[in-house]
């Protein structure tokens, strides 16, 4: 009986294909995980900025209260002409708009809004701009 010789060529080819598939999958896993981490870090920075503005706004309210209680004019806030005092705080594009209605020594917050600057022409890096 004649023996058929075993050749490594087809096996090597199969292993090469498997290796290429695994390498592509591993690169995808790593890039996705990195993107997740970057997004989580961005979210963390956004929340940090938001509460930094919140802290500054609350401190400004305290100073406004102190000024109004002493019968003085608040220096940080500006009158908007409708009987309210307004203050705009900004940090890295994030904004906090505060409006306070004062009547003598008493006051109440009528607006406390977080938003951020919107740039409609913002180009996203690596994204096809289209025609």
């Amino acid at each position, binding site marked *: 009986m004649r023996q058929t010789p075993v050749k490594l060529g087809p096996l090597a080819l199969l292993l090469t294909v498997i290796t290429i598939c695994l390498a592509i999958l591993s690169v995808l896993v790593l890039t996705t995980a990195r993107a997740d981490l970057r997004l989580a870090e961005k979210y963390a920075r956004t*929340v940090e900025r938001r509460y930094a503005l919140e802290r500054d706004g609350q401190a400004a309210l305290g100073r406004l209260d102190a000024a109004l209680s002493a019968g003085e004019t608040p220096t940080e806030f500006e009158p908007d002409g409708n009987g309210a005092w307004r203050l705009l705080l900004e940090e890295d594009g994030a904004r906090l708009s505060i409006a306070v209605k004062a009547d003598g020594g008493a006051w109440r917050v009528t607006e406390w809004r977080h938003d951020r600057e919107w740039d409609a022409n913002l180009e996203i890096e690596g994204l096809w701009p289209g025609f």
Partner: protein
Amino acid sequence: MGKKQHITAFYVEALLLIAVFIGIILTLTRVYGAGRLQSAGAERLTTAVTLAGNAAEALAGAGSEEELLALLDENDNAAAEAGAVCATYGGDLLPAAGGAYTVRVTWEPEALGAGELVKSRITVSHAGLAAPLYTLETAVYRKGAGA
């Protein structure tokens, strides 16, 4: 080439192929491991940020340190410390006594005008890590308090 030499060449070639394949598999395993670690880090950070945000909102709604403790306490997961409240949570963000995530909210009142400004540092840490995962600083002004 003799039959013996042919068989030796075959074995050497097969061994080389297996060695190279094992080397590649080991390298790829490290890449998968790095991806898994980064993914777990992202999950922990997102959880920590959410827990810190929730604690900051509880602080904004609390009138006193006792009220803050009452707001955070659920299933005996919170306890008062000196000038702070500590609460533990599970990975699913739900209050759990002995959970993996610990949220520490400090309560630092400061007289300001006719009220007080309560400054707070919110620190979220994980049981398996020495360094805190996330720190948030916020404040709330309480009109008429402490006057």
